[in-house]
């Protein structure tokens, strides 16, 4: 469920499942492929130890508290300092991280997790089962105010068996439990940490996780400095002595800094930026697959979007490919009903997705059937700061004009947008969100009827909700896939959302940066395996 967050201001770019490299470079693509399941990315063969990496960021983390801050910009950085029990491997499996192994009871209700020994917090204390129980009990108690609390609502109890064993008991089976115990919300921190009133605040000046890097300084609008965790439990890791993140206000500053050797590695926000530095000597541009998606959401709370025929007409009139071309060129993948990173394993095959455009005649027919052949005016909400939305909005306006729908474009601030979204008053809007590599975490919260889901789009579809429940309870991967296929057909047929495209993640690095791989979530896991040559 926590499908969350945006805050990916300025889109992210993405591509094929294999992380195709664009401008040659990264000749090591093949071995990287073989090891994509390795924690954090491939282990380097002959790494040079030491050195500090300068990374430029366009979006500043609004805070560094993994428990109370849902913004993606926060997660991208905190995964380097904090760890959960499992790691979200790009192929979709939950790989043991602070867990060493686990077993599930036959009824799927009890997860017995064996913990890794010899793990030490940044504070110096060793990690044991009571810390794990404390951390997950803290996050699942909604009174503590974590945005992730909802994901743990199926957890009924956490029992410390011995120092290195915990039992997590569920009220109903949940196939994506291990993925939920990952790194998006919460982490294992020392037991009792939040007892101190100032603990929440302290997370912005001092890290208390178990991750490969420790927080040194977080200066607003300026920089975040991380140092290597010398007591890190993975032997010989990380390679770097530290990471200096510089916060830059716009991509122009970033590109200029990149050209003039002020930063080593940057994630780029838009394909147009690639054009600007293509061919600059000493820079390597790489494309990576993404779990992010851009979408048109259609809230059914008001007319005419409450009419399924109208929503279908809009879906049929939409030319996803043209919208992608206009906003990010070829640096992405057009979607059906799941983000690109999930398509192969979970997606409804693209040629079987109903209501796909552009089919102006079919769209007009739908409108006529709805008694709205003369067209009408709709307001499309876009969010200030998301670059892809402007060209996409103009393109969509042209597309909808062909079926007589006039589009008013209204740009709002993120805060206002979130408020509308959460109060289920979104109308017709663009959305930009990312998921972990799991279909339950992608769909459940967004599309299940209330009260179990949030059903932000007022879709209120009982059949689809039943399918989501079935899929979540199923422990058989094949059966799950089949149920999700049925679900996606309903999703595409009744159009609460139109998933448009997944923009590639694009990174640019200087030659001295080696072995960085970009995780499809957009989080900077890869820095734990990066080294600097020279």
């Amino acid at each position, binding site marked *: *469920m926590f499908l*969350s*967050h*945006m*805050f990916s201001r300025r889109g992210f770019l993405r591509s094929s499942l294999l992380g195709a490299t664009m401008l040659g470079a990264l000749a090591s693509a093949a071995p990287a492929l073989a090891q994509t399941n390795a924690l954090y990315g491939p282990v380097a063969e002959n790494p040079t130890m030491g050195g500090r990496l*300068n990374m*430029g960021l366009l979006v500043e983390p*609004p*805070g560094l*508290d993994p428990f*109370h*801050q*849902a*913004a993606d910009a926060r997660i991208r950085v905190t995964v380097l300092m904090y760890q959960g029990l499992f790691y979200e491997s790009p192929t979709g499996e939950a790989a043991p991280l602070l867990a060493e192994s686990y077993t599930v009871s036959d009824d799927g209700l009890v997860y017995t997790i064996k913990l890794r020994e010899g793990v030490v917090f940044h504070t110096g204390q060793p990690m044991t089962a009571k810390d794990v129980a404390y951390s997950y009990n803290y996050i699942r108690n*909604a*009174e*503590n*105010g*974590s*945005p*992730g*609390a*909802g*994901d743990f609502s199926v957890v009924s109890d956490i029992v410390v068996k011995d120092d290195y064993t915990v039992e997590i008991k569920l009220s109903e089976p949940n196939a994506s439990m291990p993925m939920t115990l990952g790194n998006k*919300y919460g982490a294992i921190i020392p037991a009792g940490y939040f007892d101190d009133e*100032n603990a929440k*605040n*302290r*997370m*912005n*000046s001092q890290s208390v996780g178990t991750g490969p890097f420790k927080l040194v300084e977080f*200066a*607003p*609008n*300026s*920089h975040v400095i991380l140092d290597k965790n010398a007591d890190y439990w993975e032997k010989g890791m990380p390679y770097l002595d530290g990471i*200096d993140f*510089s916060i830059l*206000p*716009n991509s122009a*500053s970033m590109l*200029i*800094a990149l*050209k*003039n050797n*002020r*930063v080593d590695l940057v994630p780029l926000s838009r394909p147009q930026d690639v054009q600007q530095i293509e061919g600059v000597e000493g820079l390597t541009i790489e494309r990576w697959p993404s779990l992010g998606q851009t979408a048109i959401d259609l809230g059914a709370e008001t007319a005419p979007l409450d009419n399924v025929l109208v929503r279908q007409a809009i879906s049929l009139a939409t030319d996803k490919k043209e919208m992608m071309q206009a906003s990010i060129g070829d640096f992405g993948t057009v979607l059906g009903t799941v983000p690109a990173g999930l398509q192969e394993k979970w997606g409804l095959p693209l040629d079987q997705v109903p209501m796909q455009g552009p089919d102006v005649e079919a769209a007009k027919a739908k409108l006529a059937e709805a008694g709205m052949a003369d067209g009408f005016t709709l307001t499309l909400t876009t969010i200030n700061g998301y670059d892809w939305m402007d060209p996409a909005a103009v393109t969509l306006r042209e597309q909808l004009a062909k079926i007589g729908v006039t589009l008013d474009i209204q740009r709002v*601030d*993120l*805060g*206002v947008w*979130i*408020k509308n*979204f*959460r109060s289920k008053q979104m109308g017709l809007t663009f959305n930009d*969100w990312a998921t972990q590599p799991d279909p339950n975490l992608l769909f459940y*919260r*967004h599309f299940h009827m209330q009260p179990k889901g*949030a059903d*932000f789009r007022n879709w209120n579809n009982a059949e689809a909700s039943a399918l989501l429940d079935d899929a979540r309870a199923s422990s058989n991967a094949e059966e799950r896939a089949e149920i999700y296929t049925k679900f996606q057909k309903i999703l595409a047929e009744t159009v609460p959302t139109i998933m448009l495209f997944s923009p590639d993640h694009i990174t640019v690095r200087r030659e001295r940066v080696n072995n960085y791989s970009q995780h499809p979530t957009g989080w900077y896991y890869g820095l734990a395996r990066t080294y600097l040559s020279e």
Partner: protein
Amino acid sequence: MSASLVKRLFASLLTALLASMLVFLLMRSVPGDVVSQMMGQAGGDTAENALRQFFGLDQPVYMQYFNWLLQVLQGDLGTSWTRGVPVTEMVGKAFLVTLEIGVITLLVATLVGVPLGIIAAINEGKPLDTLIQSFNILGLSAPVFWTGLMLLVGVSSVLSWSPPLRFVPPSQSLSTNLEILVLPILSLGLLQAAAYSQFVRQNVVSAMHQEYVRTAIAKGVPVRLVFFKHILRNVLIPIVTFMGLILIQILGGVVIIESLFALPGLGRLLLSAIETRDYPVVQGALLIVVATAMVVNLAVDLTYRMIDPRVRES
């Protein structure tokens, strides 16, 4: 301290109070707060309410304001809702950056603008005057951020150089600090020098047209003597007053320059705090801005009194 000064000080405090109230109300009148941002597309009502309670956002607005005011009166601006750092510390650090840029820019503007203005005035109507006036009017017409952008690109492509990224205070490394600030100060200084030069020229010209100055020159008093004895003395007051005005102008201009050049000053802090709905930081930053403007005005007033005894009497 005279009674009028006390009265002014009191009026200033009242103004600051009203200003803070205005900002407080404005911020709370729009949808979306820090909690909904922290929750994003996740989270549930219980968690949301718990956090809102934590920040005191569940209380009525007048209580929130009253609590804040009480805190401020004790010298505590509160804690940032997103950073968990004391606002005083955050705003203080950012203010130092802005102040440094402001003061150096003022220095540059004065050193360039005043002589230019005087030269133009002395050569009134001659080609040199036209040239300087053209510079003034061009400098005033060019948008500050645009000049900055063009400078950044120009320097980067011609010299293959761009300022270091991470801001360093002068106490740590003066040379790196200046390296970072040279372009922002140049783009701001150009505008303010033009404004200053324009103003000085106007004042000197009108002083030169005064009856007694003409008489003195007609009587054969050397022009240079007249200039230093009469004219300069007369234009000193407006020049000082204008310095204050310029400093306040710079304070405004810095906001835009900071977001262009990635400087962690007050303006960028204000913008990002508005964006993340971090109310205590917005309040604190604006309080500093307002206070600075007031102090500058007061300082101008005092200098005024010192230079011109007549003001003291009235």
